């Protein structure tokens, strides 16, 4: 697959253009472009410049703190980390969680999907799509959307609010709640919360349908842009339920190649390491995962809505399933690969989340039943969940003294690292190459990154593993000593 434009040969001779920070994404990242005298793009990279290090400082902490501590990774989808860590600790404790606990966690998670997808589409991305990539920058934001399309903005804000209310009702707080614990949950859904959510849910389903329609209308209006912008071949990975259904809370790993053929299927979450390896590159804090059997050059892949909607065999709620079929048909037998199709797929998932919440709210197990169970204690656990942005892996080892001895986190944005870089290069090659750069042209790059809904603050945790070159130079610039750590 195409990895040209990653590193130019004569870097010192080139002009450097930096987009710093990339705006309307979570966390801090930057893009560097190296251009030659004729404005041809010779190198394009997405860098993640912040460092978090949770993998290290979670070591030595008691396991029961972990689901609460690791969710502080992020304020946008803390529930995903909260639940992935809880699932991993369920395995450590050897506990198959109770029916009530699983349904409550599912409700919490689909509330998270709903609010995060609404936030991303309406607040962060819709300004680009509704106004155009090169529109007036001062209006290219949610306030501008509210002025020009008040009903769209209103529905977006209220969809997000509803998702957050689902989280509050299950986790105790809209952000950084503590509902899920190793081995289950610590609360039921209150009847009054259930009733309040039920009173609103039909409207949320309708608005989610309208959101899918909005994206489809955009695709119809400018197919040349929506079907071609940032289009490239990529493998995909996601969790899939045992019967092939989309399941964002639990499943086994499935991997498809760029032609849509299933390469690997039904890999249990506990065996993810047999599937995935990670590569480090000297210019980024974020690792580059790949499918082991294909190697780093061929084995990189996409995760998230575009991957999930095409990786599953069906979506187990009727309205979203109908939309999935239409989406698949749009590819005319080929996988849909355009970067902007992420938004379409994301809105199909938004609808699926709303339908799932509606179905769950009618379930009496949310209101009563055992929340915690017992099990036979082990020492290791993996928890995988489909977070809003894609597959999220938490892996822990816990000593006999109950302290965590090892933590490995592979977050959605990390899986998408190579794909986002490829998207940046595709867009740079197609739209920027040979032209005088303007803010609007540079925004094309950001639009491509934004489509992945990256959470850069979640993505950088390895410590002591990064390759490092240290050079000591004298006053004349000559290198007198050099230390390399691979």
């Amino acid at each position, binding site marked *: 697959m195409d990895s040209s434009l990653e590193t130019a040969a004569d870097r010192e001779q080139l002009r450097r253009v930096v987009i710093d920070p990339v705006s309307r994404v979570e966390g801090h990242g930057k893009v560097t472009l190296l251009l030659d005298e004729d404005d041809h793009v010779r190198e394009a990279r997405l860098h993640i410049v912040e460092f978090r290090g949770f993998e290290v400082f979670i070591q*030595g*902490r*008691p396991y*029961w*703190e972990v*689901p*609460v*501590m690791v969710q*502080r990774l992020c304020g946008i989808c803390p529930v995903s980390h909260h639940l992935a860590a809880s699932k991993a600790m369920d395995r450590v404790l050897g506990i198959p969680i109770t029916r009530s606990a699983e349904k409550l966690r599912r409700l919490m998670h689909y509330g998270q999907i709903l609010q995060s997808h609404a936030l991303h589409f309406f607040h962060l991305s819709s300004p680009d799509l509704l106004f155009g990539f090169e529109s007036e920058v001062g209006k290219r934001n949610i306030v501008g959307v509210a002025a020009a399309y008040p009903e769209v903005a209103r529905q977006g804000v209220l969809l997000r609010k509803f998702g957050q209310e689902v989280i509050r009702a299950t986790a*105790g*707080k809209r952000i*950084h*709640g*503590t*509902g899920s*614990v*190793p081995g289950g949950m*610590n*609360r039921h859904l209150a009847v009054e919360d259930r009733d309040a959510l039920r009173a609103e849910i039909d409207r949320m389903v309708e608005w989610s349908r309208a959101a899918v329609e909005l994206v489809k209308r955009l695709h119809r209006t400018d197919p040349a842009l929506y079907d071609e912008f940032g289009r490239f071949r990529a493998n995909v990975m996601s969790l899939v339920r045992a019967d092939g259904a989309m399941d964002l809370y639990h499943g086994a790993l499935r991997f498809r190649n760029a032609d849509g053929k299933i390469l690997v299927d039904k890999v249990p979450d506990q065996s993810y390491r047999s599937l995935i390896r990670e590569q480090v590159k000297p210019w980024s804090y974020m690792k580059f995962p790949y499918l082991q059997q294909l190697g780093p050059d061929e084995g990189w892949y996409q995760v998230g809505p575009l991957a999930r909607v095409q990786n599953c065999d069906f979506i187990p709620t009727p309205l979203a399933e109908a939309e999935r079929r239409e989406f698949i048909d749009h590819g005319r037998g080929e996988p849909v690969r355009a970067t902007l199709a992420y938004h379409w797929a994301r809105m199909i998932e938004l609808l699926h989340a709303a339908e799932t919440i509606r179905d769950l709210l009618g379930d009496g197990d949310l209101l009563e039943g055992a929340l*915690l169970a017992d099990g036979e204690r082990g020492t290791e656990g993996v928890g995988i969940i489909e977070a809003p942005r894609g597959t999220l892996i938490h892996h822990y080892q816990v*000593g006999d*003294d*109950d*302290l965590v001895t090892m933590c490995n986190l592979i977050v959605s944005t990390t899986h998408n690292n190579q794909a986002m870089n490829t998207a940046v290069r595709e867009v740079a090659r197609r739209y920027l190459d040979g032209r005088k750069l303007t803010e609007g042209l540079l925004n094309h790059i950001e639009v491509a990154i934004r489509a992945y809904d990256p959470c850069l603050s979640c993505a950088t945790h390895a410590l002591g593993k990064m390759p490092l070159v240290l050079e000591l130079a004298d006053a004349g610039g000559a290198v007198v000593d050099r230390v390399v750590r691979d």
Partner: protein
Amino acid sequence: MGGTFLFDGRPVPFEEGQTILQAARAAGHYIPHLCWHPDFPPHGSCKLCIVKVGGRHVSSCALPARDGMEVESNTPEINGERRALLQMLFVEGNHFCPSCEKSGNCQLQALAYELDMSSARFAHFYPDRPVDASHPDVLLDFNRCIFCELCVRASRDVDHKGVFALTGRGIRKHLVVNAESGRLADTDFAVSDRAADICPVGVILHKRVGFAVPIGERKYDEASISIVAMEKGE
């Protein structure tokens, strides 16, 4: 011989031998405290119960009440000093409330809310204090110790085991376990000991019960410490 003193301008009766804090509490007036506990003799180390008597700042848990005293407690000046003491306690240890199991049941946290402490103000020490997870039932997280010695006193005077001690002086003072190895597992400490449930902060924790009670539904989430302390006699 008992008598009456003025507490923030209001008369408070006392009996012979009662401290200012005891008499004030008996009359329904709360004075903040951390190292004081109704079941133990006054200790006078945390200084949170500081009051002003005749222009002098004294520990109300230790000073016997006297007839005609004029005591100032709930004043901007005294609460400001209490807040500064809390800020020093916070920066001296590693207090990360968001993932602490004691959150909502912690007296240090509750007092910070009570006294409107909105920032740490001083530079954090970030001390390196490894946890002791050697005991099968109890975790010791020294990061949160405020040196109140309640565990030392409970283990020595109630449990008659002497499991804990403070060692070092001044800035290097710290809590240790009385065992050659320094590990709790190598003592006769038991989860049923009084010392296992006496810690006002999150140092001594029962293992494997993290967040069973949701944050938001805990003791000091329901009511402020000034109310809880008086109603529950804590």
